């Protein structure tokens, strides 16, 4: 089942008297229970797409649906959704508890249910000892944990994460990534994630879409998308002694040093065949390293192509 359906969505804005497309006939689906990564350079249209899905921006054409409903016409559907952004802010005078209580109430929670939910979430995110601290007095890490707690207050079936780790120190970023994975695995929450950090998208996403200048360039699993641009990966081998140079040359090995070799393999091709072939030719391998193309390599390649 598709939780998010975007069909031929276009959006354009006028700047200095000229119209330009922020989204141009974008179509994509996010399936129930998956983590879907949306990546692209600055100004590619990622946040615009999220704003459309959140019902705060109307597309010029096309349809954006969540759980089969148009968010502009049926705002009630947003009660099953939540949103996290590194830029989220709450009223500066509200305390941690006020923020959670207000948002809980606005999703229809009340009485004991909301008290219990606040207790659980603040304990889980380690902010139960600062319940009365006002938003403007929170550190960046505490703010982020509050934003996360708030995003789960309504037990959402779909959460949008817009650059959730932007500008955070690595220890908090790691915790946040773990939490995204946890809510997806344990609660079956569908996640739509945008990030500039390629390793984050690669680490978390089941499927991705690459968006550039308002158009979807590629979509699929991370491996499948990379395969479209890269068909090989590198293997680096440390050997006891370099022997049988003819064999090495014939089989496409590059000699990098006194006892180091490099070979390019097809993605999907196994290393075991390579190792047994080397052993049969009297070459003892002491260490193996592989370097597969990363999403970052893919990103750079796409950007170079689009220049």
């Amino acid at each position, binding site marked *: 089942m598709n939780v998010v359906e975007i069909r031929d969505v276009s959006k354009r804005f006028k700047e200095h008297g000229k119209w330009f497309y922020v989204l141009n006939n974008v179509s994509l689906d996010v399936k129930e229970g998956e983590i879907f990564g949306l990546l692209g350079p600055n100004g590619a249209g990622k946040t615009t797409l999220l704003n459309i899905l959140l*019902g705060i*921006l*109307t597309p010029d054409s096309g349809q954006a649906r969540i759980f089969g409903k148009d968010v502009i016409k049926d*705002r009630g559907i947003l009660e099953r*959704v939540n949103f996290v952004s590194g*830029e*989220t802010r709450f009223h500066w005078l509200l305390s941690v508890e006020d923020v959670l209580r207000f*948002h809980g*109430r*606005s999703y229809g929670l009340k009485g004991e249910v909301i008290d219990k939910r606040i207790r659980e979430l603040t304990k889980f995110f380690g902010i139960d000892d600062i319940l009365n601290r006002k938003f403007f007095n929170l550190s960046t890490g505490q703010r982020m944990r509050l934003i996360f707690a708030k995003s789960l207050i309504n037990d959402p079936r779909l959460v949008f994460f817009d650059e959730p780790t932007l500008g955070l120190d690595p220890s908090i970023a790691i915790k946040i990534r773990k939490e995204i994975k946890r809510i997806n695995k344990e609660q079956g929450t569908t996640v739509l994630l945008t990030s500039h950090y390629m390793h984050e998208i690669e680490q978390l996403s089941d499927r991705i879409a690459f968006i550039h200048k308002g158009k979807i360039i590629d979509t699929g699993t991370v491996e499948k998308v990379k395969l479209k641009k890269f068909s090989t990966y590198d293997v680096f081998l440390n050997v006891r002694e370099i022997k049988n140079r003819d064999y090495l040359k014939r089989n496409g090995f590059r000699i990098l040093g006194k006892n180091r070799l490099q070979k390019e393999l097809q993605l999907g091709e196994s290393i075991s065949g390579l190792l047994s072939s080397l052993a049969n030719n009297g070459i003892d391998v002491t260490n193996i390293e592989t370097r597969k193309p990363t999403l970052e390599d893919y990103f750079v390649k796409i950007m170079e192509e689009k220049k």
Partner: protein
Amino acid sequence: MRWYKVKALMARDLKIYKRSKWKIVDSLYFPVTTVIMWGLFAIYSREFAMEAGLMVLVVNVFWSFSYLSQSITNHSMNEDSYSGSLKQLLISGISEFEYILARIFSSTITSLLIMCVMLTVSFFFGFVTLVQTPGLIIAMIGITLISSIALSVMIAALIIFLGKAYGFLAWTLLQAFILLSAPFFPLKILPQVVQVIALGMPYTRVFMGVRGLVETGIVSNSLLLEGLLVSVIYVLISYPLYKMAFGRARRTGELVRMM
């Protein structure tokens, strides 16, 4: 219509209000000190023209009330925009109607409480008609309130339409409506064209009524009905404008820029 959303937003507004000293000062200190100043003038002016001083005092009370009941709604919207919390409110699925309704309720409760304080203070400065004709006072408060609600919705529409930079309309635009509603003087002293405009203003009949009340203690029912009719017309115009402004802001991206 989901009341829990309206109630949640009202409870939040109340919490912010309680936590913000400047808000209390802004909404209580200025109206009350204004009433005291004009009250003292009313006492002083008794020596040569009693009604004039008292008239200015009571008109000021209604002016302050109209400003409060309009501006509290618009200030809280501005605050949502400037604090960056507007996005969090809107993505919770609250409708435009629920959002403005919560603001109107909060503003009505606050401004009515302050109006009670202002009327009590003005009573001690000679506005005794207050206890002699409570029905008339309540009717005029009602008309003022409906007019201010309508104007707050219109001003909200304007700010959404023009953008965040026009947030200042929340505390400036009402002044023009007050001026054209002829607060301290009869319509006949205005040029003919302005008189026609003044008849279409929401507070004109209220101020006429206030002056009549101080002068003679009588306000005609037809004047009150006219006032009510004009204020209801403003309400009927204001909501479609607000709805249209929201729709346009969603299309142009102005709503996103307000967040």
